[in-house]
């Protein structure tokens, strides 16, 4: 009796996270996926109903097509400049008159990659210093890293406008010191977006790096030095390779949300800062083309799944 009960209990325990994922991830995903397969309709909601009872489910199913994905593929082909003629036919011409969506994708990936790298450059020394700090100071330092989360993300990004704008704090400081003679134009450029992303996502880089570096046995560094390795070379040969799991985890934690980032480019970036998050927003709410934007979102998801899978493979290999 007791065994049956505990068997049921263990199933229930496992079932909870599955149920969570099913309700809050899989079902919304399926809904978005369905929208992406349907056609644009000028109505409320602005797409042909995806489900209206099982009766005409199969009738509807035949209306589903991959047109939006076809469009996205043509967009990419058009951007690259090959096989564009194959695509001209079926689409309304105004689609091809606006900027390529692929530009937004690639620009997002580029901005995310650059800011991930910058975050790593800033975060690594911070995490290293924290891991080398006296044991008694580490909880305080960890607290300080997490402290910004106590203020709303939106407010913190707004605060950067006050710092970066032409008459902002940074320019005033630099002008007063005499380092520059006229205000720097940082606001509404990609530089401001980089600064915003590096600032906002720094804790996500520092925390996994810290946990990897803190585990590192200091006697390994001593052993390397004992065997004739200079401190800097010991860092590259021992410390860095052993902190790689933290580096990869931190980079993924920054890169993935940064690709889809909307708030930072919207507030700090200029009209020329093209990111897929902004494009999604305008497709959903300005053009009200839900099916296409759903397809854009699904493709973005697929693009992001690739690095995650690669990371998991690398981890599995490291565990061997």
């Amino acid at each position: 009796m007791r065994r049956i009960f505990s068997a049921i209990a263990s199933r229930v325990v496992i079932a909870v996270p599955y149920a969570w994922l099913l309700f809050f991830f899989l079902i919304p995903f399926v809904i978005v996926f369905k929208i992406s397969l349907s056609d644009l309709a000028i109505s409320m909601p602005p797409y042909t109903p995806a489900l209206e009872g099982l009766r005409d489910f199969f009738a509807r199913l035949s209306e589903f097509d991959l047109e939006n994905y076809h469009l996205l593929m043509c967009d990419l082909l058009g951007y690259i400049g090959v096989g564009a003629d194959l695509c001209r036919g079926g689409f309304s011409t105004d689609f091809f008159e606006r900027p390529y969506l692929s530009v937004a994708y690639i620009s997002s990936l580029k901005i995310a990659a650059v800011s991930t790298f910058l975050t790593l450059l800033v975060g690594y020394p911070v995490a290293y210093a924290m891991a080398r700090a006296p044991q008694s100071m580490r909880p305080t330092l960890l607290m300080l890293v997490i402290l910004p989360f106590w203020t709303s993300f939106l407010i913190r990004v707004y605060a950067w406008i006050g710092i970066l704008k032409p008459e902002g704090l940074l320019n005033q400081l630099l002008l007063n010191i005499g380092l520059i003679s006229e205000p720097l134009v940082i606001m509404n450029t990609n530089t401001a977006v980089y600064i915003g992303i590096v600032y906002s996502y720094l804790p996500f880089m520092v925390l996994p790096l810290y946990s990897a570096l803190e585990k590192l046995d200091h006697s390994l560094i001593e052993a390397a030095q004992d065997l004739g390795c200079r401190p800097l070379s010991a860092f590259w040969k021992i410390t860095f390779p052993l902190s790689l799991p933290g580096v990869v985890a931190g980079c993924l934690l920054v890169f993935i949300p940064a690709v889809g980032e909307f708030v930072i480019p919207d507030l700090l970036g200029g009209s020329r800062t093209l990111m897929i998050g902004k494009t999604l927003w305008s497709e959903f709410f300005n053009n009200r083309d839900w099916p296409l934007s759903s397809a854009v979102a699904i493709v973005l998801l697929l693009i992001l799944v690739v690095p995650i899978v690669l990371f998991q493979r690398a981890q599995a290999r490291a565990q061997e």
Partner: protein
Amino acid sequence: MKSLGSIRKSFAPWNDPAATPYIRFENVTKKFGDFVAVNDLSLDIYEREFFALLGASGCGKTTLLRMLAGFEEPSAGQIFLDGQNLSGIPPYRRPVNMMFQSYALFPHMTVEANIGFGLKQDRMPRDQIAARVAEMLKLVKLEQFAKRKPHQLSGGQRQRVALARSLAKRPKVLLLDEPLGALDKKLREETQFELTDLQQELGLTFLVVTHDQEEAMTMADRIAILDKGKVMQVATPAETYEAPVSRFVAEFVGSVNLFDGSVSAREGSVASIAYGDGLTIAADNAGDAAVGDQVAFAIRPEKVRVASRKPEAGADNVMSGEVWDIAYLGDMTIYHVKLDDGRVIKSAMLNSSRLVDDPLTWDDRAWITFAPDAGVVLTR
């Protein structure tokens, strides 16, 4: 292989006034904040010596080793190696290598890469590195494990990799920090002998830190016993055991019976030590103990004989009491005899025959005897 016993027997450079020490600690002090880890310590170690630093934890032995390796700088004093003053030389330029207590093997490198790491730092040509690594693998009998990662090895194998790695660069001195601490008893005993053989074969100077006196005595040519950052005694294992210079050393190494008293008479090398109400011990080799000096007479349990029959009249150092405790260890039996004056004396009797014709048992009347030259007189 030729027997190394004869080499070891005649090896005693510390008795040769003409020999120059290879490693020299000169009035070395190391402080960590208020804590004095090493206190004005001087110590000479000779080339090809297997030298052990023995002491309880916190006695400064590891600090001494780390100062020689260059991980700590002395607060005062100097360290010389082969005539060279080591102060200010960073660890990566010192001609010494260390085998770490935790082994500190690089987990992301194979056994081969671990052993070759130091050679690669020295920019040794690739083929020479490969040859040296192969030689080292053979030395520690790990040829078939070259491609493994450290976590795929057993504790004993890891210990060998660590040893091979620290030997690969042919250091002037090999420093070993508790080299056998993580091994189980059986493996430890085997490895002790392997290490001494290896040291003789390679002709290197080994400096080992240990808290295990048996380990130190098995392996070392000489032992320095440390306490609170100071050297208590430097001597061969036999001297340390048989001729301790102080109560501390006598009690630290092995088991001992101590009688506190004062010298009541002196006749040549023999002193009479009064240790209780009219009770005296006749002690040979009394050194410079003069009449009236407060001394301790130390005698090892195996040099105390215990019997159920009263010895013949005229025997030296006879005491009587009753058997208080018996510990049968197989090879020997330890008797705790409570003397008539209340003190408990330990006696270890070798069980040289299987059947004891005169068995002593609990509460039996027992007689204790020992020769005047079986113990030592300690003035400190």
